[in-house]
């Protein structure tokens, strides 16, 4: 038997473990590069008295997929309901092949799902756009749940601001632009899921659910903020101008430019704009959304 380095073993093992299972949840007979998986397994795993090298590797292959698929289903329960569990499972495998776990924490696993789904819409069939919106909201919830929280601006800091000042937003504040007004739908599906889980005691993940029947939803540009208050996540509808001002602040534009970016999209008469802007900033300051910029980041970007 030839010797291989630890790094080679780790790479072989990772590649084998991350290879999708067969439809019957078994390890594939062939590795992605065409080699026999039996030979791959035997190259770095010894058999024991009960299991072959293949069978021993298969355990880890299954554990990886059960674990990552479970984590994704846990973070996107409304998406699973909207497209149906069978489509969701197929979508999850497709997504995880493109974006396998790369982090020490499964918390980050679904970070690319919404954008990936925009170019892989066949998994969601006729509900593709709706599904992307639902995925965006559910990921925003994950980010808002444990995103960092900085000190909001103080009165002393506000006293130094002018139109050229740079501001920052709370890291846990997520700005979400949607094609459909699906926020209430997602909230209701989460409540429903929670109720079912409570009533059933144990959730049966293997149930094969078709896409849920949904009330008719018409396209309507919708702007949301998902954020955290006292360890709970909330979402708040924003109007268009409000959303664009916040987005400009997050993009690092100076305060004067950020205000202009928002009010010009707000579709209100010029005379009413100052009042509107005052209301926005009052509400954001009350919620602690506006912070001083990260000076290190500003220096790095200049």
């Amino acid at each position, binding site marked *: 038997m030839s010797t291989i380095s630890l790094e080679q073993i780790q790479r072989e093992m990772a590649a084998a473990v991350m290879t999708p299972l067969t439809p019957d949840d078994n390890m594939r007979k062939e590795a992605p590069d065409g080699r026999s998986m039996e030979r791959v397994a035997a190259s770095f795993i*010894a058999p*024991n008295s009960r*299991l072959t090298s293949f*069978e*021993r590797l298969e*355990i880890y292959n*299954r*554990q990886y997929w*059960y*674990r990552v698929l*479970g*984590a994704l289903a846990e973070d996107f329960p409304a998406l699973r309901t909207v497209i149906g569990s069978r489509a969701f499972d197929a979508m999850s495998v497709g997504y995880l092949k493109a974006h396998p776990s790369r982090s020490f*924490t*499964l*918390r980050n696993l679904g970070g690319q799902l919404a954008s990936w789904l925009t170019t892989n819409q066949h998994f969601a069939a006729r509900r593709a756009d709706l599904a992307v919106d639902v995925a965006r909201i559910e990921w925003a*919830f994950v980010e808002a*749940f*444990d*995103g*960092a*929280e900085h000190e*909001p601006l*103080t*009165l002393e800091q506000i006293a130094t*601001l002018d*139109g050229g000042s740079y501001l920052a937003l709370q*890291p*846990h504040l997520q700005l979400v632009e949607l094609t459909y007004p699906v*926020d209430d739908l997602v*909230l209701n599906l989460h*409540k429903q899921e*929670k109720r079912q889980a409570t009533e059933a005691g144990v959730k049966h993940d293997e149930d094969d659910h078709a896409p849920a029947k949904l009330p008719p939803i018409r396209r309507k540009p919708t702007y949301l903020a*998902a*954020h955290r*208050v*006292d*360890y*709970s996540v*909330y*979402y*708040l*509808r924003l109007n268009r101008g409000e959303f664009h001002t916040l987005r400009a602040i997050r993009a690092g534009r100076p*305060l*004067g430019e950020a*205000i*202009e970016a928002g009010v010009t999209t707000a579709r209100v008469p010029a005379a009413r*704009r*100052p*009042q509107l*802007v*005052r*209301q*926005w*900033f*009052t*509400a*954001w*300051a*009350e*919620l602690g959304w506006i912070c001083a910029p990260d000076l290190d980041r500003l220096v790095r970007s200049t």
Partner: protein
Amino acid sequence: MKNQLNAMLLTAALSGLIGGTTVAHAATTSASKTTVKAAKAGLQYVNGDKPAKHSCKGKNDCKGQGGCKSSDNGCKAKNSCKGKGGCATDGSKMPKAV
């Protein structure tokens, strides 16, 4: 004219920031802090009593750090190796730390 309007908008933004920050600061010293802020926060995404699927959900000791899912019982009831002894290398015991 445009400059004048922009100055008015900036003044409005700054007075809004001052007003909101003052209210938020006053609320931190009031007993009703949570209620006031939560009332303006929008709709709660999940109920506060949601069962903790992740070990740290609801406890927030991971707040701001990420990393909730690394230590929960994700493989509970899914141990396909249970009873077969395939998990440890050749059934050997874990080496003891010296």
